[in-house]
């Protein structure tokens, strides 16, 4: 299994509070991604990174920001959490140079916004 960890694994927070989710990899892969999974929607891309300090928006980026100061860490921040952001969040990594675009996923973080 790819070395990807996510923290925290579960979190309950109140509406309006800031939340930061962390993804950490030990594979030295260049590309990192954040997805959210909701019933009936599959996984949808929030933001991704193609290098340190290089990030771009995905399909559902509103209300989220990201940062990547080191190759191994990719942070997802909800500036002011809303109930619509209750979801399971997955981090993924990819290394196009050595693979066929497949992505390897972390264990997920279940976030509940009350």
């Amino acid at each position, binding site marked *: 299994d790819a070395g990807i960890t996510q923290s925290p694994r579960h979190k309950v927070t109140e509406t309006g509070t800031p939340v930061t989710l962390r993804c950490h990899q030990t594979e030295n892969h260049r590309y990192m991604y954040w997805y959210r999974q909701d019933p009936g929607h*599959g*996984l949808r*891309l929030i933001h991704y990174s193609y290098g340190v300090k290089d990030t771009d*928006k995905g399909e559902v980026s509103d209300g989220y920001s990201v940062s990547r100061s080191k190759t191994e860490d990719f942070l997802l921040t909800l500036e002011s959490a809303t109930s619509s952001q209750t979801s399971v969040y997955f981090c993924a990594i990819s290394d196009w140079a050595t693979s066929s*675009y*497949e*992505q*390897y*996923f972390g*264990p997920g973080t279940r976030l509940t916004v009350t």
Partner: protein
Amino acid sequence: AQTVTQSQPEMSVQEAETVTLSCTYDTSESDYYLFWYKQPPSRQMILVIRQEAYKQQNATENRFSVNFQKAAKSFSLKISDSQLGDAAMYFCAYRPVGVYSGGGADGLTFGKGTHLIIQP
């Protein structure tokens, strides 16, 4: 925008039987990768099999094989000799090949999933 459609929200099969999960996609690209991911109750996303569009030969991984029909934009997953451990959500995913173009193009586009039940 690319879309991936899995028309079977749920499938059920007897243990040891064969089951086929359907996936269709819409794209104007000529080269791309297609994937099947498995998500068991543990929630972990596990890559099952991959197929590159320019390769005509269907990919196979042990009991898992695909039927890739490029003209029909169809990518079905066949699971032979189904086992209880195959019970999971299965997601079909798409990713175009090519130079980074931004705008989220580098992510995978997923279908909504098929819940596979294995009857003992």
